């Protein structure tokens, strides 16, 4: 016969039984935070360098209120960081887009400025670069233009040991 009563969680089910609804509520909050983090995953880019892990050692076990609160708080903190990172990037990209517009209107006032597609939130490897037309002559004459270099660099073999 299999005995399914377990003494080890007696503290969880016995004297602290009134804490069960609190643990359920915490698990529901963790599920919502995880869903929100998952939704934001699609918006995050590798260069945002977000550390997703909140840590979790000790193997699978029944968590008490304190541990559930820690998981909930860590997730909430991570979510806050992700939102802040995304908002900062959005602001930076908007600023770069405005700068690009100014650069296109008046290249001479933005000499040698480079703005990449990534800087304005676009995919690809294009770079807008303000350069003098005809090289040195253009520099002397004040002939400035915006060049868009498109295309990603060709793949190179990984640098191996010498």
């Amino acid at each position, binding site marked *: 016969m299999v005995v399914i009563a*377990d003494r080890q*969680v007696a503290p969880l089910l016995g004297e602290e039984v009134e804490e069960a609804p609190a643990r359920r509520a915490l698990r529901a909050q963790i599920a919502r935070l995880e869903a929100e983090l998952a939704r934001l995953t699609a918006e995050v880019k590798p260069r945002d360098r977000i550390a*997703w*892990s909140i840590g979790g050692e000790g193997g*699978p076990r029944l*968590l008490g209120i304190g541990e559930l609160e820690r998981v909930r708080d860590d997730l909430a903190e991570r979510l806050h960081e992700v939102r802040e990172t995304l908002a900062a990037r959005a602001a930076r990209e908007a600023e770069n887009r405005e700068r690009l517009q100014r650069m296109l209107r008046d290249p001479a006032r933005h000499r040698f400025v480079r703005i990449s597609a990534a800087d304005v939130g676009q995919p690809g490897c294009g770079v807008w670069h303000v350069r003098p037309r005809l090289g040195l002559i253009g520099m002397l004459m004040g002939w400035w233009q915006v060049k868009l270099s498109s295309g990603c660099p060709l793949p190179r073999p990984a640098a191996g040991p010498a």
Partner: protein
Amino acid sequence: MSLQGEPPAPREGLVAEPLREELPGLGVVSLVVPAPATKRSPEGVREHLAVLSTRFRGADALALRQRPVPHAYRVAFRHVGLDPDTTRTPVEAAAIERLVQGGFVSRGLLDDALTIALVETGVPVWALDADAVDGDLWLRLARAGEQLGEHDGALPLPDGQIVVADARTPLALLFGEPAPDRLPHRRTARLLLYALRVDGVPLVHVEEALWQCADVLAA
């Protein structure tokens, strides 16, 4: 666990009371199937893996955690104190391996069947040697002094860990790999496939994963 007569049906294992109370929806479902006669995957199975590799790309890996079933497993990991960004959920681990290797690499019929079931359904499936398992599988908490399996050098389990166990001993940590002495080997005649169900994943979905695996093994 006879294979003669009626076709085998998935069986739901027991869940110890504290786990049932605290983690409703958590469960273990198992299915006994004959072990495949061959170790190497037939052409059809390798093609299946290749098709899955084509279907599953980087964008899918990113979107994975937004899909209901993988999301449910991530939440379940959080609920039992595992960080799915450190200890990957099985389907995310498979996705990362797919991206790193450039495809789902064939590693023999059993491994391929487990991978196909996992990627097709999002539900992780593990295999044991059915004859090395004593009674039905169930989920419970490890007791003080218990070990994972009964082999020499078996891993001691901390008190209170959630384990998949048979009537005798813990066989695997929840979401973990089974003890080496219970894994299928060359002379295994019957396989015990088992999948873990979590809150938010319907039973029918878990059974589908087991059937998928059984179908591939019978290919």
